[in-house]
């Protein structure tokens, strides 16, 4: 679908959350993140506490983060999503990843730990969210938990987590995380056999 056709559908029923969400998705697909955010927010507001609202907030956070130096707002979107559906893993993952990215490892550890403790990882994947493979949230949260543990002084715990991933599921990790995992095991844990 194109923006034009989604726009025409939207105009006919612009109170419909799906029409708003789909138009947001088209704007996102062509890199117009501000436009997308407006329609995602409208979609969320028109279906409180449904999966469309949750998914819209996940996208809004991702887009604000991608615009650069807007982390407080990205975080606010993800936190709202998390509080809406606290058993889903996506919001925890993006929050934890963001905190680790900005070196707030205690927060990264906290949110990944909470997710691994409380989330249900066998829920239906979100329909239109493919920032990572939707089957890999648990594994990526384990990775972020292990990474943040290293930087927060939990060295043994970090080694245990990262080695477990390496020994049992390393090929399931997305390439970016896989490269970092190997780097950590070699450089920080001095495991030359890796």
């Amino acid at each position, binding site marked *: 679908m194109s923006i034009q056709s989604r726009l025409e559908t939207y*105009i006919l029923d*612009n109170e419909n959350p799906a029409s708003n969400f789909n138009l947001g998705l088209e704007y996102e697909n062509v890199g117009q*993140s*501000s436009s997308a955010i407006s329609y995602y927010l409208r979609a969320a507001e028109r279906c409180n506490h449904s999966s469309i609202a949750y998914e819209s907030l996940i996208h809004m956070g991702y887009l604000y983060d991608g615009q650069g130096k807007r982390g407080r707002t990205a975080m606010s979107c993800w936190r709202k999503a998390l509080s809406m559906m606290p058993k889903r893993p996506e919001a925890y993952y993006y929050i934890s990843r963001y905190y680790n990215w900005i070196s707030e490892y205690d927060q990264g550890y906290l949110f990944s730990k909470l997710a691994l403790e409380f989330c249900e990882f066998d829920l239906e994947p979100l329909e239109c969210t493919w920032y990572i493979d939707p089957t890999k949230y648990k594994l990526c949260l384990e990775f972020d938990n292990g990474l943040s543990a290293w930087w927060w002084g939990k060295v043994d715990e970090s080694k245990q987590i990262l080695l477990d991933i390496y020994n049992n599921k390393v090929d399931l990790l997305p390439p970016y995380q896989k490269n970092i995992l190997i780097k950590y095991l070699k450089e920080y844990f001095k495991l030359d056999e890796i």
Partner: protein
Amino acid sequence: MFENFVKHVTSGGGIIKPLLIDPKLTNGLGLMNPSVYIDDGKILVNIRSVNYTLYNCETPHYEHVWGPLVYIHPEDNLVLATKNYLCILNDELNIDWYKLVDTSKFDTKPIWDFHGLEDARLVRWDGKLYMTGVRRDCNTIGSGRMELSEIEMSNDYVKEVSRTRIPLVGEPGEICSYCEKNWMPIINKPFHYVKWGNPTEVVKYDFETDRTIQVSHTNIHNIAHDLRGGSQVIPYKDGYLGLHHITYLTKVAAGRRDGMYRHQFTYWDKDWNPIKRSPVFSFLTGKVEFTCGLAEYGDSFLITFGFMDNAAYILKTPKKVLEEFLDVDSK
């Protein structure tokens, strides 16, 4: 209140098109408040490109932690910055060509937090193409004044070749207004503007004397809202047509500011008496919508507007649809 004017127009044979600039140039940030002008048969559109994304919710449940209406700019650079892209559209209203307007010849270091020429309307007066909008970066308190930026276009560039700051009406040195913006250029009356719509005040800027004088001031009418500036004012039939914006400012429970914009057409006679006013309307039911452009184009009008400061659109409106819309309240 008439909601979703665009639906009304498209169901009457009109067309809407999104206006997009390559996100590699804009970082995908807000495109807003476009202005359309027909220049020797060519459809010119200026699109305002900003460094922020507006967050504006409709319900308390979705308030940002900083309030319902927040400009999300880089957290280490708390300014609202504007650039402008001049575009040529084809007859299908798709953008064929665009260039960033190069303003470097006249730019000085901004000394207030709103940078650049905002909400620039396009108009050609005395053979020269102008962008005329508000600039607020010239003093430390952000006083807004309308400016005239003369524009030169070639295949390879668009650049500002002169810049004039329009003084207030009154004696030189008199400061009686903090911010003047959204004056509506009257396209067939050089350097004339409609300042606002109720009462209708028409002013003229004189380059020779560098003074602005009041040309017309009609009686105030008993309507419930202010009629602020908006589009250009265009001659139509025996009078003039323009599109105003209306601002409804509110506060949420926590005392933070919020707002909603709506619109209204006015049709004036030759002496600036308002003959008809349309219903107050929204384009797409967004809270923040804003128009800077109105042009006559064949059997239609072209209207350009921004949606939530984050998206820009052009709406081709059959004349018959708009004429009937103007007559709604008089039936």
